[in-house]
């Protein structure tokens, strides 16, 4: 009985996709238009402004950054020094810690946002009271400036005068130095990041959840399926496209994380919560422009090396289903 439901669910997932994944496949829009030829859809003139912006703001800086990463650059002049910047960058004493912290941070924030985001999405798509209001509340932190959140939490988490530890002390608990304990600082920032960013994941999951036809759940109920089984065998497989999007977005943003960490700890205490982004930023601040550009090139390659295969893997799994 359960098997029939599962079979039905699995087979129809080929047809029913979340809005996100169907968009990715390119949809059928192109074929519908009154297109004369199979070639360009718009006149080249129409594309020109966008092309210029893309060229001037993205292509030119990207290419020139590859060049400047090979120079000793003072902003006033540059001297070609080959790969020396990359050698120096990989010898950076804090690099290993920076990389380790980056991966820990990306992992914690991604797992946190997926788990909490899915739970919140299921809660907010159920028949809960004041659903609209609650949805807005969950999404609200996404709209606030990251730096603003960082500064606010820095005040709240002050070990001696902060609201958090003062509240804990009412119950006789001595709160730790959330941002000043070298072992805790990175985890604290990651937790705030989850709080701040979970709204986007929730939204994507909600879109995925509402796209699952109710019939499956009704059929499953008739078959006497419990809540956990319905979740495990209906919800989870059918929400997979949304999950792929959420994981990919969060891994990318986790690897590129910088602003919240900078606002809350500045990579500190000392170097203990430094991530690649803040290591590079500090090199830039120090006036090592060539070196920090080399760091950015490395970051670009690392993020691409991790996310492109992930993207491909997710797509393949979608197609396989």
């Amino acid at each position, binding site marked *: 009985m359960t098997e029939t439901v599962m079979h039905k669910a699995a087979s129809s997932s080929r047809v029913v996709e979340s809005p996100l994944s169907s968009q990715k496949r390119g949809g059928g829009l192109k074929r519908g238009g009154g297109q004369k030829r199979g070639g360009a859809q718009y006149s080249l003139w129409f594309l020109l402004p966008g092309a210029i912006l893309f060229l001037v703001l993205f292509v030119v800086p990207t290419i020139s950054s590859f060049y400047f990463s090979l120079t000793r650059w003072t902003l006033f002049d540059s001297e070609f020094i080959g790969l*020396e910047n990359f050698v120096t960058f990989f010898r950076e004493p804090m690099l290993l810690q920076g990389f380790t912290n980056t991966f820990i941070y990306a992992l914690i924030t991604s797992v946190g946002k997926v788990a909490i985001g899915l739970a919140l999405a299921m809660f907010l798509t159920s028949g809960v009271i004041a659903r609209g209001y609650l949805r807005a509340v969950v999404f609200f932190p996404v709209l606030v400036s990251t730096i603003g959140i960082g500064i606010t939490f820095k005040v709240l988490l002050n070990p001696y005068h902060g609201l958090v530890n003062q509240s804990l002390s009412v119950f006789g608990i001595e709160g730790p130095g959330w941002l000043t304990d070298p072992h805790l600082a990175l985890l604290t920032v990651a937790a705030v990041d989850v709080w701040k960013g979970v709204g986007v994941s929730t939204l994507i999951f909600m879109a995925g959840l509402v796209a699952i036809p109710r019939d499956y759940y009704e059929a499953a109920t008739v078959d006497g399926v419990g809540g956990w089984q319905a979740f495990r065998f209906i919800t989870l497989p059918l929400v997979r496209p949304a999950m792929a999007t959420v994981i990919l977005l969060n891994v990318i943003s986790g690897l590129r994380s910088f602003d919240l960490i900078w606002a809350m700890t500045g990579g500190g205490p000392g170097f203990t919560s430094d991530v690649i982004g803040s290591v590079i930023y500090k090199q830039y601040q120090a006036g090592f422009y060539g070196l920090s550009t080399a760091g950015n090139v490395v970051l670009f390659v690392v993020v691409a090396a991790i996310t492109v295969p992930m993207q491909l893997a997710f797509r393949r799994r979608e197609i396989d289903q």
Partner: protein
Amino acid sequence: MIEPKPLRRNLAALAALSVASIAMTGCSVGSFGSSDDGKTTITFQNFNAADAVKASKQMIAAFEEENPDITVKLDTIPGGSDGDNLVKTQLSTGDMDDVFAYNSGSLFQAIRPEQNLVPLTEESWVETVAPSYLPAVSVGEDVYGAPSGTSSPGGVLYNKTVYERLGLSVPTAWDEFRANNEKILADGEVTPIEQTYGDSWTAQMFVLADFANIAAAEPTWAAEYTENKAHYADEPALQSFTNQQQAFDDGFFNEDFASATYDDGVRAVATGTAAHYPILSGAISAVEQNYPENIDDIGMFALPAKNAADTRLTVFLASAFYIPKSTTGEKLAAAKKFVAFTQSAKGCSIFLEGGVSGPFVNSTCTLPDSVPEAVQGLQQYVDDGKSGAALEYLSPLKGPSLPQLAVEVGSGIRPAASGAQLYDEDVKKQAKQLGLAGW
């Protein structure tokens, strides 16, 4: 539907548009500066610290009163590394204000003065500036900057009432300092040494304010350091890092050292909850402004060296006002006039109103008798020949990661030897960036 134009014409249009966009961004706001009524408007950029902004506004008002045909507009930039970047960007794009304030010493050398700044060697006020200051704003024979106020020694701010109560005397050797701290710790009433790593720059004082002591012990150290022959990982310089680690290990620091800020530190030592606070003498004017009733309770002494005979006060020289090469014509004349005004007796009196924290380097300016006792005590070191310039005025090398490394050493995260070694690595990057010989 419009047929797509041939590719070549599209490319030509694209090229024209990109040229136009470059021309547009190259146009600077400064070109609208001069108006028809015979007035010249110049811009003046200073750091955004509250006292600097206040002094700048007073300076501008006084200057405009004497020169009704010149209008000065004030811009501000943040201090620290963010400001460094901004200044470098402004200079390299030719968008710098007509007069700007910036550090002297190693940071000044890093903005390519010969290439970017107008030499002021011929100005009459140069003669009034102390010869010991001029190297910090000169390249070769040319002087580029005018001192923007008093120099600011670094040392240990201490609370005299605590010293009196416990019968302590001002230490001149590190072991005496440590013994004093032991007594304060045993007394249990106050914190022996205040540390404020919430503002990580304050963590560097054990190292930076110790430099005159190193130079007294080994006068050639700075030159050897620049040539990659002397290093922080070796004695005598390693001592600075070791001192900081020892003070942490001894348990001399305040409980909230990791999160406290500079303002907390100033309050602690002014009100006597802490006995010592190693910091720049600017903290004296902070006490004067915020805790005026406590100003007579504080004093400042040089960070003690290992041997009492080597103890010197480390002096950080005043920042300076510079004029960029992008300032020309009547604006240049007006800018020079403004800089000269800051070096006049009237200019000095305005600096004084903002609170003084150390000796002047300009002979037209003298400290009035009303300055706090703590500042007079610092002047005494200078008069006795017991002072020396900070390392950043004797060598172009200053590693950017010192604040973080000092925080790690001072928090027990990293031992002193490792911190000193990493700092040498850090300095190496700076030396390479500057293209120094021997690295």
